[in-house]
């Protein structure tokens, strides 16, 4: 039987399937066995208690949903005292996502979140509805480097950096994060989007803009993972449009070590467990002994392509 375990820096995941931050909480234990997941990923926490954005916070579009939640939460003190212990009841490593509007506070959060039951700190520097100079630092190489350098100086915990698909050149931003000391890259966050209602001419979301969540993101994010993987040495967690085991395989072939899943778990709350089971069966059917064999194994050097004949008949 295939060994599904993967290593991300010093952390070993029992399999490469984890929820995406914001799409998950320990409350999913009501429906699935959380101990089967590769990791547990908490909703992004901020220093201050936040109510979040006005409703509606979600709208359906032709090609997925757009949502803008606004990072609601009870603040970091409540989180460490009450939420971390909820996750500590389960065995997979806990990834804690955090966000702020300033680099100084991001660094302070990294230090304060470095408590025993937190295994990984995920720097959510890519919340799409935050300002590029006020928290959505992954829009720029320099901000990314400064923010991750500052966080790195304040924590010894593994530091994963969540990048933005909305940046122009994600490869240079990924390299900046790596240079600044990131242990892994999370690619990517949601795509900044807008829906306008034609019945009342108003934006469909209370916050106007939202992030697109959809299986349609997969080919775009897969391309980003592929491009970044060619240029960095640290592991990548691919997030965008995974709905089945073959999608996990595809991300791993492109160079990801693990994947995060959001939408599929909303649509089918048992999806993550089934994807893990299906991935195991997929590997076993092909005699793959270790799932890590798939990482970066895309055959892009010996592509079989048709040779075009210049003077084809009838052209």
């Amino acid at each position, binding site marked *: 039987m295939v060994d599904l375990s993967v290593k991300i820096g010093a952390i070993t995941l029992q399999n490469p399937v984890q929820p995406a931050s*914001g*799409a*998950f*909480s320990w*409350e*999913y234990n*009501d*429906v*699935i*066995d959380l101990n089967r997941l590769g990791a547990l990923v908490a*909703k992004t926490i901020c220093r201050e208690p936040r*109510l*979040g954005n006005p*409703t*509606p*916070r*979600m709208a*359906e*579009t*032709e*090609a*997925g*949903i757009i*949502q803008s*939640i606004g990072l*609601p939460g009870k603040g970091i003190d409540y989180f460490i005292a009450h939420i971390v212990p909820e996750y500590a009841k389960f065995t997979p490593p806990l990834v804690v996502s955090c966000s702020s509007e300033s680099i100084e506070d991001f660094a302070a959060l990294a230090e304060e979140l470095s408590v025993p039951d937190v295994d990984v700190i995920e720097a959510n520097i890519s919340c799409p509805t935050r300002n590029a100079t006020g928290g959505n630092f992954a829009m720029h190489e320099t901000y990314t480097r400064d923010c991750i350098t500052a966080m790195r100086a304040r924590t010894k915990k593994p530091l994963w950096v969540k990048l933005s698909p909305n940046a122009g050149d994600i490869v240079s931003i990924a390299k900046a994060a790596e240079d600044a000391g990131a242990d892994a890259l999370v690619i990517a966050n949601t795509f900044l989007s807008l829906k306008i209602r034609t019945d009342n001419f108003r934006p469909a979301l209370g916050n106007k803009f939202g992030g697109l969540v*959809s299986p349609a993101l997969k080919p775009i994010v897969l391309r980003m993972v592929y491009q970044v993987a060619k240029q960095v040495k640290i592991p990548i967690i691919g997030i965008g449009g995974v*709905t*089945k*085991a073959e999608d996990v395989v595809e991300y791993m072939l492109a160079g990801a070590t693990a994947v995060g899943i959001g939408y*599929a*778990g*909303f*649509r*089918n*709350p*048992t*999806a993550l*467990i*089934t*994807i893990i*089971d*299906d991935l195991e069966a997929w590997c076993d059917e092909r005699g793959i002994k270790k799932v890590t064999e798939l990482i970066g194994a895309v055959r892009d050097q010996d592509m079989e392509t048709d040779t075009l004949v210049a003077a084809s008949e009838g052209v």
Partner: protein
Amino acid sequence: MPADPNANYTNSALRFGDVDPYPQRLVGEFIGTVVSNHWVNDEYKHVILKVHPQALKAYAGQMFHLLCPSPDGAEVWMRRPMSVYRVDKDAGHVEFLYKCEGRGTRGMSMLAPGDDFNITGPLGHGFKLDLSWRYIVVLGRGVGLATLAPLSQLAAENKVGVTAILSARNPGVVMSKDLFEGLGAKTITVFDSDGSSTVENVGKILEDLIAEKKADAFFTCGSNRLLTLMQRLGKKHDIPGQVAMEQIMVCGFGACYVCMRTFEAGGQRVLRRVCRDGPVFNMQEAVGW
């Protein structure tokens, strides 16, 4: 038969007869089999599903999150939350009463006997019945009555008397009268067409019930106007109440914070998740919409 919305998606939903690999679960993803799906009147349909026994734990006021088939060939991306209309434990059925209005419910209306229907639940906190109550009053309008119907069943099982005030546009579209009466409830129907559904008249009916000591608790769903009325009279006469609320919902488990509504508790305005903190809330804490 509408296209299976699950064809391209991964899940391990339980069908009737499946062995549950995670039997300690509180909530399940189920594939029910449609037994029947018929029109109740021009706007509403009633669907009956044969389900895995784990789904029969649902009680009054709880919801299922429904993965509706597409009515138009385009994707329906999110589930639709719906409170359970009836649980028939003997037959192994879960039932829903719904208004064919949006894309999700229009897709549901196309379900035929034998079709699969993926539902997740039971979700949330439903109605709580205090066994010291002797008589309760339920007041509903439109599809809100579907939410209140199983409460009547719960009350009947616990020997608590029910007066159901059913509000509708006209006598032709009043629903669930037979269901409430079959459960031993006294029903009072009020209509827009003859002016009896006004807040003033419904208020008078409630005042009369209070005077007759037939109102130990109030329950409502589906109308902001009727919620406000019950809140006012509940406060005046110190009668406890519960209200079932709706909101656009994504995950159903309390994880995504999409389905927030405002409440007033302890002098403060607070946001609560309809899916997990509700959908049934203390009536006096609800803020109308």
